[in-house]
């Protein structure tokens, strides 16, 4: 489904991705771990060409993403959902308009079908009552849910999540993580989740990789990673556990 080969990206002298390679198979949930500033979000943005990498290859559904013309890229993007860190809801549009936007612009659907899809995704994220609200009237958790609803409304084959639980309280984080997993199973999507939230990863991940200084330092199941004797991983996960316990108090 997704194949990343030897991806490099630098900002001036700051090397962010230094030869990152991995594969994600169909319907798999892959979690990318790493401390802040290790290039996790840059990795996601390079995958869908919101940023151009300096070198390397990205294949999604067999297509060489970095070599696609804009028209072909936009066609491919219709099959990809992206949940942004801050949800990125359009401030000037209501929830309904936010959800309608990708459908009206990209798909030839009649109003009845559009309404049905809006109803379906809002019900899936349990926010049917927010349909006419503006983004400014929503809480952080609600914005995440609506962002998620907007990402899945086009029925994407691949979902990319950029820190889906950042800025949320532990209970809402857990709810969002469970919701993501439920939607993954219901819609049979492949997903790549960038996070540093261990609880979120435990709920979602089939497999995980750890990024450090632009390289993948470890790959495996969450249990393999958390029980690893590697000093870097021990340090990372112990910090995460302390942070998680602290936020639960």
């Amino acid at each position, binding site marked *: 489904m997704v194949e990343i080969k030897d991806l490099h990206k630098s900002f001036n002298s700051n090397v962010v991705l230094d030869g990152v390679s991995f594969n994600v198979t169909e319907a798999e949930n892959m979690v990318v771990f790493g401390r802040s500033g290790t290039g996790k979000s840059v990795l996601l*943005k390079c995958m869908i060409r919101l940023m151009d990498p300096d070198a390397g290859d990205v294949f999604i559904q067999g297509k060489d993403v970095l070599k696609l013309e804009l028209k072909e890229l*936009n*066609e491919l993007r219709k099959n990809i959902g992206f949940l*942004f860190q801050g949800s*990125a*809801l*359009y401030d000037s549009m209501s929830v309904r308009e936010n959800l309608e936007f*990708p459908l009206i*612009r990209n798909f030839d659907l009649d109003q009845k079908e559009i309404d049905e899809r809006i109803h379906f995704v809002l019900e899936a994220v349990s926010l049917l009552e927010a349909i006419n609200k503006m983004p400014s009237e929503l809480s952080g958790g609600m914005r995440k849910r609506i962002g998620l609803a907007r990402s899945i409304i086009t029925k994407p084959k691949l979902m990319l999540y950029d820190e889906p639980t950042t800025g949320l309280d532990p209970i809402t984080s857990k709810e969002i993580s469970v919701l993501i997993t439920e939607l993954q199973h219901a819609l049979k999507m492949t997903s790549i989740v960038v996070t540093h939230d261990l609880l979120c990863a435990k709920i979602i991940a089939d497999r995980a990789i750890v990024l450090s200084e632009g390289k993948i330092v470890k790959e495996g199941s969450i249990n393999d990673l958390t029980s690893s004797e590697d000093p870097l991983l021990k340090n990372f996960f112990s910090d995460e556990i302390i942070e998680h316990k602290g936020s639960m108090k």
Partner: protein
Amino acid sequence: MNNTSTTGKLFDTTEKRLTEFFNMLGGLTNFSIRFFKEVFLPPYEVEQIRKHMIELGMKTLPIVGVTGFIIGLVMAMQLSPVLKRFGAEAFLPGSVGISIVRELGPVICALIFAGRVSSGIGAELGSMRVTEQIDAMEVSGVNPFRYLVVTRIFATTFILPILTVYVIFISLIGAYIAVVLVQNMTWAYYLDRVIFSVEFGDAIPGVAKTFVFGYIVGLVGAYKGYTAENGTEGVGKASTSAVVVSSLLILIFDMVLVKLTLWIWPTVK
């Protein structure tokens, strides 16, 4: 030693500012080229353009109206004693009319428009950029440049001339009130004198140059907002510098366009 380090710092700062300035000019040129490439390609966002024209026009209408009225009033009050000194009081309506139609109306309206609209576009697009809304649009397969930038530049280009005609009319009313205070003149006679003095050769270049001013306001505001970075601080900077740069460019282009008009249309005297 101290002087050397001060000179060095001054040199570095000047070099940095000049680099930034030329980078901005390059960026604006590229942005402008991209606009002309995309504006003719479908889908044509007619509904968005209409929405922006109404929104921007309505937002600016009161402030340009008040400003135009005061400018007309003050202009007539200032000119009246000067013309009286030369025994040319009868030329007051014509002098005020020509000044307002040829220069004051278009430029004042454009500067007010720049202050109100360019900063607004800069802040709006800047905020969309730093909160990843533009990225979200791109990911969903929509061309954000066409949807957000082209529509706004198109709207500012065509709404400013309409506002300018309105400002000219309001300014003439303001000037009439000042004229009535010093001379016993009817509105019909005043208007007749203005129309007699102002020729098409005065009105057409005056209004036509506002298409360029409107384009500048939209272009600079959109460029500053679309390329904003560094979070909310970047949004503030985009908004402020959009006003400064667009106002400066309006004055520079006014100078060039006046010279150009007089060169290609020598009957305009």
